[in-house]
């Protein structure tokens, strides 16, 4: 399956703590702590198993003052999600 057809969910082992300027993701079992900025937090919240890449990019476009080309934005979101998957913070929806 290609990235565009997948949906994602947060790894439930991590506590997701929203802050004004971003969010913490903390795994109390392993003591692993990560931080994401405001856009990262927005993407995480859209990873609820329902939104595909198109929808996520569209919503970012609507919400933030994005000053990059749509294809650049998409690449950046993809690379963010790939990093989150590699860190096991996100999972692909089965």
């Amino acid at each position: 399956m290609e990235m565009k057809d997948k949906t994602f969910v947060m790894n439930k082992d991590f506590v997701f703590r929203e802050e004004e300027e971003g969010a913490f993701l903390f795994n109390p079992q392993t003591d692993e702590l990560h931080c994401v900025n405001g856009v990262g937090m927005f993407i995480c919240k859209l990873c609820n198993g329902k939104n595909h890449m198109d929808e996520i990019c569209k919503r970012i476009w609507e919400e933030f003052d994005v000053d990059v080309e749509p294809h650049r934005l998409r690449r950046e979101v993809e690379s963010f999600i790939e990093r989150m998957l590699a860190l096991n913070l996100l999972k692909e929806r089965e």
Partner: protein
Amino acid sequence: MSLLSAPISVFVSITYKCNLRCRHCAVYSEAIAYDDLDSESWIRFFHELAELKVFRVRLSGGEPFMRHDIWRLIDIIHSLPMRLSINTNATLIDKEAAGRLSLYRKIDEIMVSLDGSCPETHDPLRGKGTFREVYRGIENLVRSSLPVSFYCTVNRYNFRELDKIAQLALEWGRRPIKFNDLLPEGRGLKNYKDLSLKREEWEEALNLLGELRRTYGPVIAGTILDQGDMYDSMRHMGREDLQGLPPNSLSGCGALIRECAVRPDGWITPCDRLPDLKAGHIHEHRFREIWHSSEVFETFRKRREVLLSELEECRGCLYHPVCTGGCPAAPYVLYGTVMTRDPLGCYRIYLGEEAFNVL
């Protein structure tokens, strides 16, 4: 930087009771006595912390293992999505207790006070026979593979044998050890004259610790080395390096950015070193409300905006751009305010350019 939704970590003085009567203890004084909260209040509080997604709790005291319900409380904390550290004097840790502690997978640190390398230097400070009891407790913890670290209050009785104390910590598996200054609080204030180091003695301790750190690396740490490092960088800065740089503010304290504390009787304070700065009681207010809108906390947070150049005590000092004003606990105890520099961390006082005497 905006205020976090809740602290990352909370320092919980779970009991005021202690089985020892250490002469340097910064928590106790014969003039104070708090009533401990009951189990149910603590349990409600830990659940509230979990709701707010606080990641860490540090249990301290008094001596946490004096509580009859300590295992129940540890069980509750451990069942919540948070991690746990414990400060203890280790005298009540028998083999069974150590074995039980080793079953918890989310304990990050068990910090044990170790103030001497033998009964002769340890016991005058902490009571007859205590070295042996502490030693036994540490052995039990280490044998159960627990993450033990050490805290040593440097004072007149032990400053010449810090290498031997470090050696003990290293023999127990290269454990981190903090060598910290004596604080003029609690019994530490009462006995300050007898226990505190003179300037030459403090320097001797600093040199010894510097050597230990060069040999063993960052497992050797603490406020004496931190202060020594700061003085060292100040010493190497000339007027030309500092002139024209903007002044720093009273930024040396991290309380209420990521952390705060709770007293045994349920009052929330900025830090365990500032037990009289009561921001709200957990029976009367939600913790979130206290963290965000207590007047005491709002005022305390303004400390970070006070420029050193605006302080009467720091007027004309060359070091405004690099100094951070130190810890607010000592000025609070000595002058009744946190809105000023820490005289015990002031380079000008250290150089003898200003006179200062705690007593």
